């Protein structure tokens, strides 16, 4: 540790090592910016870390079980990497693009998620991954299948500049409900298209212009087409590998990393938090200056506001696969809101020892939804019922925050809390948005020249 050589001036200071912050840190370092990246906690990942079982007990339980008991039941602690926030990558999504264009794929290995399921009338069904599965899917009757096929053909052949492929529909004028009507699709088909393919968490989209829904369905279909079984990917050793991979990218391009370093004080120009701009942060290792700071909401609570949404997440340990899934080692189950009399869908993400996130023979199921009542744990009941016997349950509630301002006044650029969606698309939107506000340029992903020598 050569503290004496430690620089105190940087181009950017980043606080928190959640995936949003780590991607930005990596991208800015690659751009040649001098980045200092600090986390108050002693591990990478911030709110979206993957933690060991002992850390999980410590976080969620008042009376953690003894080490002996824990190891007898669940094996070695280091075999566990439990995500605090469940998500999957869309195979053709923006995070995948960023991973490829930054070569962070060198550090993280991925597996395909085995299946995507949707809940209907008390049972779960595989969401058809292609035409052949659609034809044999019990989700639709024979006539509905034909209509569904027509709909998918329209999605597949639609070309912006060929009016004839639009079939008279205008994606910016027609609502999604009007599109469904055009193809004569029934409620139950609308439900699985809107919730299990377009991945909307509620039905607000029906009355909105069709374009975003169209784009989401295209993303779903392209993601399925890329590897086959499902549109989703998941990293070996858990989602916590992603922030670590981007942090490494940042470090390789000169970024300086300090974990376990709480921020003692933030200073503003003119000594005024209200009217000044960001000036510096004070830590146990010294005071560091930069013209701007990027941070997650926990570092600047006063500069954030609640989105009004709260998410409940339940991490469940199972010692068996989820019933009715053909022993799948990983899957997503979507419980559409209308099936259980709710306004928001319930998501269940399941991974297992096949992904090196738990010890042999175990499965991790993480249930999440947006809270609608004052008894949130009861809202999760329909999901618990699908899982069979549950060995252990860890429940937590998170309020979602967003920045009050865009950072142009005080040079404090804040990310949003990780939302209830089942994938990373809204997170990458946030990354692109912050990147634009910080640099004044849109993020352009160009493949970096191969560093690797063979």
């Amino acid at each position: 540790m050569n503290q004496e050589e430690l620089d105190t001036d940087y181009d950017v200071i980043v606080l928190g090592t959640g995936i949003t912050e780590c991607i930005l840190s990596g991208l800015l370092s690659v751009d040649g910016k001098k980045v200092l990246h600090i986390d108050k906690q002693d591990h990478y990942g911030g709110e979206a870390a993957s933690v060991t079982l002992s850390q999980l007990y410590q976080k969620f339980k008042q009376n953690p079980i003894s080490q002996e008991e824990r190891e007898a039941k669940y094996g070695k602690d280091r075999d566990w990497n439990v995500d605090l926030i469940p998500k999957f990558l869309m195979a053709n999504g923006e995070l995948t693009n960023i991973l490829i264009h930054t070569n962070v794929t060198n550090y993280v290995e991925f597996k395909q998620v085995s299946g995507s399921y949707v809940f209907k009338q008390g049972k779960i069904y595989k969401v058809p991954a292609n035409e052949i599965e659609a034809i044999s899917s019990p989700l639709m009757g024979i006539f509905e299948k034909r209509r569904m096929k027509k709909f998918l053909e329209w999605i597949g052949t639609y070309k912006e500049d060929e009016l004839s492929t639009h079939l008279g529909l205008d994606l910016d004028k027609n609502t999604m409900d009007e599109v469904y009507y055009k193809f004569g699709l029934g409620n139950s088909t609308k439900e699985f298209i809107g919730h299990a393919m377009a991945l909307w968490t509620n039905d607000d989209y029906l009355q909105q212009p069709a374009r975003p829904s169209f784009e989401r369905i295209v993303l779903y279909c392209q993601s399925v087409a890329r590897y086959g079984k499902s549109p989703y990917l998941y990293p070996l050793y858990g989602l916590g590998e992603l922030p670590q991979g981007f942090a490494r990218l940042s470090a390789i391009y000169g970024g300086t990393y300090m974990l376990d370093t709480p921020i003692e004080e933030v200073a503003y120009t003119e000594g005024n938090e209200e009217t000044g701009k960001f000036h510096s942060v004070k830590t146990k290792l010294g005071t560091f200056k930069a013209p701007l700071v990027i941070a997650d909401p926990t570092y600047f609570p006063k500069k954030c506001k609640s989105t009004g949404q709260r998410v409940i997440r339940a991490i469940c340990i199972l010692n068996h696969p989820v019933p009715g899934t053909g022993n799948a080692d990983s899957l997503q189950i979507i419980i559409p809101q209308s099936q259980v009399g709710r306004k928001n869908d319930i998501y269940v993400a399941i991974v297992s020892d096949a992904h090196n996130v738990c010890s042999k023979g175990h499965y991790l199921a993480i249930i999440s939804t947006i809270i609608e009542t004052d008894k949130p744990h009861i809202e999760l009941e329909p999901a618990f019922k699908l899982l069979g016997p549950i060995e252990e349950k860890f429940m937590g509630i998170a309020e979602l925050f967003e920045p009050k301002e865009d950072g142009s006044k005080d040079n404090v650029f804040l990310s949003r809390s990780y939302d209830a969606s089942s994938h990373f698309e809204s997170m990458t939107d946030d990354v692109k948005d912050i990147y634009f506000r910080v640099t004044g340029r849109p993020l352009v992903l160009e493949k970096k020249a191969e560093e690797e020598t063979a």
Partner: protein
Amino acid sequence: MNSAVTSIKLVLLGEAAVGKSSIVLRFVSNDFSENKEPTIGAAFLTQRVNINDNTVKFEIWDTAGQERFASLAPMYYRNAQAALIVYDVTKPQSFIKARHWIKELHEQANKDMIIALVGNKVDVLENNEDERKVAREEGEKLAEEEGLLFFETSAKTGLNVTETFVAIGEKIPLKTAGDQETDSNGVAISDEQRIDLANSGNAAGQTAGCSC
């Protein structure tokens, strides 16, 4: 005839400026630079060597400076089958740091990891043996106690650099064709769902349109 390529993830550890990146540069490009910047840019290099008719591909991870404030990510050690712990024979402090890394690896890394203790910059001693601050015997003794390979090297002249990597390669159980890959606990990993994001995937997924 065995034609399978064994991939070995190898990590480098050691105090700043002991010559970690220089050792890699010598091994991978047979090159040396007098005023090497602290590791920036390339911290993931690969190099193939032939060892007894087998090809071993080293995937070499350099620390990228994250160890400086105790901020090395667990990902760094994850699944590493080999490590070089490097010290500078002219800097006693770097030898103390090497002991620290040995302890750290015993705690964090997989227990079958092949570790080599490397005393670098011995070329400095050629003109002036007084510069030596860590005796060869000290290094040897520590390596023996801890069950490590031991080499004194010079990234500058190339002395013992390739030898260090070859010695590691010889100790790693080689993959024979058809072998299954195993994870750090010796559990077989089925490859069927693994994907190589950078190089695979259906082209149809890239273009507009939908094949479902």
